[in-house]
């Protein structure tokens, strides 16, 4: 089995600040994802990456940057935090090709 870790667990920032969230997986999965979940709502895809150094925009990429530094890690940056912005950011990974079963990390609360 494997595990996905996200850091930090909680993130507090000031308006306009750039905030970075990190995700690590040891499944050896090719594809990694960043989702945003607002209270009482479903998940919206921000960015995903199908391999190291690859980056694909999701439905909510504006206001975010992402970086796939290596196969096991995927970072997300909130480029300018908004006042009273609250959400949970979830990282996930899956095997590329054939199987799309996704595994999720514990989340970072902004």
């Amino acid at each position: 089995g494997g595990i996905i870790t996200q850091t930090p667990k909680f993130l507090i920032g000031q308006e306009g600040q750039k905030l970075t969230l990190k995700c690590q997986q040891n499944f050896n999965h090719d594809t990694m994802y960043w989702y945003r979940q607002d209270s009482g709502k479903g998940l919206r895809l921000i960015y995903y990456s199908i391999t190291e150094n690859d980056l694909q925009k999701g439905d909510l990429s504006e206001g975010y940057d992402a970086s796939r530094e290596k196969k096991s890690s995927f970072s997300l940056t909130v480029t300018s935090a908004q006042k009273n912005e609250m959400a949970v950011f979830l990282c996930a990974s899956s095997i590329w090709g054939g199987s799309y079963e996704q595994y999720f990390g514990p989340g970072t609360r902004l």
Partner: protein
Amino acid sequence: GQQVQQSPASLVLQEGENAELQCNFSSTATQLQWFYQRPGGSLVSLLYNPSGTKHTGRLTSTTVTKERRSSLHISSSQITDSGTYFCAMPHTGGADRLTFGKGTQLIIQP
């Protein structure tokens, strides 16, 4: 793109009753995944069921691809089953990403 609709939006049952959750999707898909999220927690994969019927513990998922629907049956519900259940399937624009439904909130009362 792919649309995923879940029903009911919320469901309140007494402990011991059976729960039936529905997922309908707009385009035929070859993969479908059910997730569980406890309040304040991350998503946990319950069943990966592209077609047919699959069982795990008290959970049974039946996916009828031709009819574009899947169901999740929880037998003898327990208070700890309370939470939100999501179904998800590949996005029509790219099979390596998922489209999520908005979830069914399940509340099991003693």
